[in-house]
Every structure is written in structure tokens, then in C-alpha cells.
């Protein structure tokens, strides 16, 4: 142990010297804000009101949250975001990863496709958002033209301008951006599965699909659970792609929680109400994170 050459005093104090800057920064910029957010959600205030003009309203802001139809639209959209992302980014990308790691593709094409599919995830959300805004736009739009060419003119839409399609267009773009990223994580997990298992299965006459179900899926189980929970938590935190592409419109149809609280706070300047929305968001993401820890036990194993 590192205590070898150290006196008692140094043994106890030195680690704190290494930790101190981190702890100070985290207290000031992470933990203090959480506490502060709960306090400020109990008041009505705006950016111009000094502390003395904060009006105490108790839990009124929270009551307002649960009477607010836009809040429910937001939650519904967050849930759609989570469901579709788990289906595409987690389940579909696991299939893709298994195919890329199978012997069906040559080594070169496998690594080529891997890189190409990963590429969208390194680009900034604004760049991706604006690119797809241009492509979904009916006048510059590529998407509607493609639909025309392949005989699907009937499904053309003003994608970001219609209440029925706006949030799904944004969710679709997110899948475009992140599927390759999750796929890479699955590829690494698959590579860690002992090769002999596949060989033994082949000798026993198992086909590709059987190998996938009986070896690959159990082998990546942990990665699968972690990716699912991270994706679900991410779906409740989403902000930037929605803000860039629709800003929650038209008529709040594509609002998500993170987006709505930003608008209420920094556009409508109702900081107390926005803090209450943030408080609700804290409870949701905290509960999900906590479930993840209980569920996966990753953290507890880490600390043992």
C-alpha cells in the first residue's frame, strides 16, 4: 500500500491535497446548484428581481407543473424519444454490430462500414441539426425529393412544420447521429467474447442466428443493460437537437422537458417556474440513475 513510506499525518492529509481542487469545483458548480435549484423553485422571481423581491409561493410552482398541458406533451415526447432510441440505438445497433463481427463481411469492408457509421456522432449537434433542417425543408429539401423518386410521394410532409411529424423527425435525426456510436460499443463487447464458444457452436451445427441468440446476446448482456439505461436517461435529458431543429414548435408539439424549462426560464423569464420544472427533471433522472445502479450493480462492484 502507498502508506509504506509515509507518516500518519501525510497518509491522511496527502490524498485530500490531491482531491481538494476537484471537491471545491464540484461543490460550487454541481452540488450547490442542485440545492439552490430546490430553494429557488419555492419562489416566484425573474432575472431582474433582486433576492429581496423573491416572492415565496411554497409548492405552488410544482402544482402548476402538474396542471400544465405542455408539461405532459413534453413528458410524452421524452418517452417517445426513449422508446425509439432503445429500439434503434440499442437493439438495432446490436444486430449491426453482430453482423459486422460475423464472417459475412471481409475484414476491410467491416472496418470501413464501422468508421462510416460512427462518423455522424463526432459532429456537433448544431451542424447536424441545421443539415437536416435543410434536408427536411420542403423547398431545399432532399428528403421529400427522395420520397418522390422512390414512389412514396404520398408520405411527403413539411416534416418540422407539422405538429404530427416534428418530434419524430427530430428523434429520427438523433438515431442517425448515435446508432453508429452505440454499435462500436457493442462491437468491443462482442470482441471480448471468447472465440472458442463460437467454434464449438459451429461444430455443433448452430447457424448464425442461433449463435447470435445463445452466445452473442448473453455475452453482451451487461453492455446491453448499461446502454439501455444510459439511453433512457439521455432521452430525458435531451435539449440541444430539439432546440436547434424545432425549438419545441410548432405550437409546443415537439417540446421536451429540457427544452421547455429553458424556454420558461430564459425566454419567458419565469425563473421560479423553470426551477420547479428542473426539480421534476432532477427527480426523474435521479430515479432512473438510481434504478440503473441497483439494476446493474456496476457502481457497487466498482467501490468494493
Amino acid at each position: 500500500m502507498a502508506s509504506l513510506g509515509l507518516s500518519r499525518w501525510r497518509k491522511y492529509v496527502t490524498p485530500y491535497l490531491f482531491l481538494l481542487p476537484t471537491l471545491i469545483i464540484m461543490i460550487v458548480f454541481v452540488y450547490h446548484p442542485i440545492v439552490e435549484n430546490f430553494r429557488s423553485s419555492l419562489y416566484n422571481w425573474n432575472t431582474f428581481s433582486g433576492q429581496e423581491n423573491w416572492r415565496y409561493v411554497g409548492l405552488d410552482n410544482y402544482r402548476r407543473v402538474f396542471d400544465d398541458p405542455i408539461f405532459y406533451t413534453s413528458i410524452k415526447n421524452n418517452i417517445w424519444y426513449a422508446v425509439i432510441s432503445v429500439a434503434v440505438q440499442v437493439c438495432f445497433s446490436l444486430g449491426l454490430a453482430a453482423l459486422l463481427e460475423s464472417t459475412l463481411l471481409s475484414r476491410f469492408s467491416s472496418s470501413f462500414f464501422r468508421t462510416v457509421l460512427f462518423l455522424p456522432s463526432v459532429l456537433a449537434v448544431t451542424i447536424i441539426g441545421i443539415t437536416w433542417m435543410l434536408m427536411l425543408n420542403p423547398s431545399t429539401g432532399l428528403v421529400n425529393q427522395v420520397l418522390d423518386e422512390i414512389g412514396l410521394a404520398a408520405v411527403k410532409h413539411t416534416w418540422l412544420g407539422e405538429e404530427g411529424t416534428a418530434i419524430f423527425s427530430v428523434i429520427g435525426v438523433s438515431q442517425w447521429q448515435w446508432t453508429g456510436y452505440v454499435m462500436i460499443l457493442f462491437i468491443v463487447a462482442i470482441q471480448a467474447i471468447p472465440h472458442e464458444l463460437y467454434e464449438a457452436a459451429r461444430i455443433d451445427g448452430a447457424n448464425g442466428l442461433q449463435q447470435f441468440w445463445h452466445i452473442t446476446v448473453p455475452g453482451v448482456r451487461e453492455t446491453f443493460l448499461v446502454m439501455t439505461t444510459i439511453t433512457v436517461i439521455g432521452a430525458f435529458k435531451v435539449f440541444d437537437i430539439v432546440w436547434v431543429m424545432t425549438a419545441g414548435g410548432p405550437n409546443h408539439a415537439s417540446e421536451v422537458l429540457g427544452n421547455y424549462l429553458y424556454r420558461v426560464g430564459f425566454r419567458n423569464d419565469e425563473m421560479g417556474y423553470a426551477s420547479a420544472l428542473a426539480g421534476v427533471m432532477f427527480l426523474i433522472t435521479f430515479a432512473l440513475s438510481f434504478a440503473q445502479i441497483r439494476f446493474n450493480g456496476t457502481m457497487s462492484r466498482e467501490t468494493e
Partner: protein
Amino acid sequence: MDTLRTQSSTTPSRTFHVNVGRLVSKLLVYVLFLVLAVIALYPMVWIITNSLKTDIDLFESTWALPKEPLWDNYQRAWDYGIARYILNSVLVTSVTTVVTVALSTMAAYALARFDFPGRTFWFLFILGGLMLAPQVALIPLFRTLVKLGIYNTYLAMILPYVAFGIPFNTFLLRSYLLGLPREIEEAGLIDGAGPVRVFWHIVIPLSRPMIASAMVLQAMTAWNEFMFALTFIESDDLRTLPIGIMSFMSTLRSEFTVVMAGLVIAALPMILVFLVAQRQFIRGLTAGGLKG
């Protein structure tokens, strides 16, 4: 296709059957991945080809290659001030990355190598930051930054980025340190080096691969960050690329092809870094198993 199928049913040779099946699945898989690759790449190709056209050409034939490349769009996008945004992004990203990874390595060393009361508590305390949605801290952070007098300065981005980057990086580096043999460090301590010298001369050089991966991932996160940069910066002079591109877009809303040229310029730095540092990307994100 049809001939193949009749043949395989008339000659029930097992190996032949399997080979045909394999050939067909091979073909299907290649087609699937080719389609996906086109879907992944074509938007970027589309932006590039159209960034070299006039707006009229864009509306007339979105598929066509530019008649003759109109580099003027790039000149105009550049003149709008993209260089300024890139410079701001480089500054904010590099300071954030160096400070975050330095502090995280220190914290990880303390947590992985010292046996002191409260070790588990402080580890969970730091890791707890991962569970927090940044939106929850947004409004109070805004007030704190105003109170500290650093709202609308580079520090208004850097300090929150560091604070929110530390948990993940500490987690990553601590796991890596736990996996390293302690013997060299112990030898150093027996030889009379203090913990600081051991950290500087032994721990950091040994952790170099993981430090590099952490830096690449942290840089990518900071480079692309949107919400804090949008909220904590007011003046155009200080804007980073993601926000700058937004204001660029709203100013030039009707000049589509110039906007496209701007997007290409904005995307280039990250794509170049990715192509150079691919291995570090993959190592870092697989070690952490996390995504933005």
C-alpha cells in the same frame, strides 16, 4: 436467384446448400450496410456539393454536381467570422480539457492509491455528478456566474465544463490506475520520493494512454457543448462554434448555399481530429462505456 434455388433443391448436397445460403446472406448483408453507409454519408456529401452552387442551382437540381465550383460561398461564410468562433472553441476546449484531465488524474490517484477514511464517500461524491442532468443546475449556475462576475466570459463556459467533466474522467482514470501494478510506485516511495514526485514521475507517465483517451473524449464533449454556451455567453465575440453556427444560420437564413459552406468549414476540424485520433476515441469510449 430462381435457378439457384431449383438447383439446390434438386441436388440436396448439404455443403452446396449451405454455401448458397451463405452467399445470399452475404449479399444481403453487403446491401444492408451499403444502404446504411449511403444514409450516413450522403447528407454530408449533399452539403458539400451544394455548398459550391448558387441558390438557384440548389433549388433546380439538388442532385447535380455543381456546374463549376463556386468557392465564393466559402469566402463569404469565412468573412462572416467563422474564424472567430473556431478560435473561441479552440481556446475553451483546450483549457477545459487540460484542466479537467489534470484534476481528474489527481483525484483518481488519491482514490486509487491511498487508504484513508472517507475514500468510498468521496468517490461516490464525485461520481454522483454523473447522475445529474446539467439542466437541473442551469438556472442556479447562471446566478452563480453572475455573482462571481464571470457571466459572459470564457470562464463561464470553462468552469462548468470542468465541473461536469470531472466525474466521468475520474471514473475512467481511477479504473485504469486500479488495474496498474503498484510495485513501481511502492519502489519509488521506499526510495524516499514523496507522493507528489511519485505522481509526477511515475503515475502520469504510466497512465499516458488513458490520459490521451480521456483528453480526446473530453475535447469532443467540450467542442460540441451547446446548452451552457448558449446560456452563459451573451456577446458574439465569445461564442463557440456550435452557437456561432446558429447565429450564422439565422442571419443568412435565405442564403442556403453560404450556410452550407459554413457548415462544411465548421465540421472539418472535428472530422480531421477524429480521423487522426480514431484509436484514442474508441479506447476511451469503450473504457468508459458512456455517451454524451
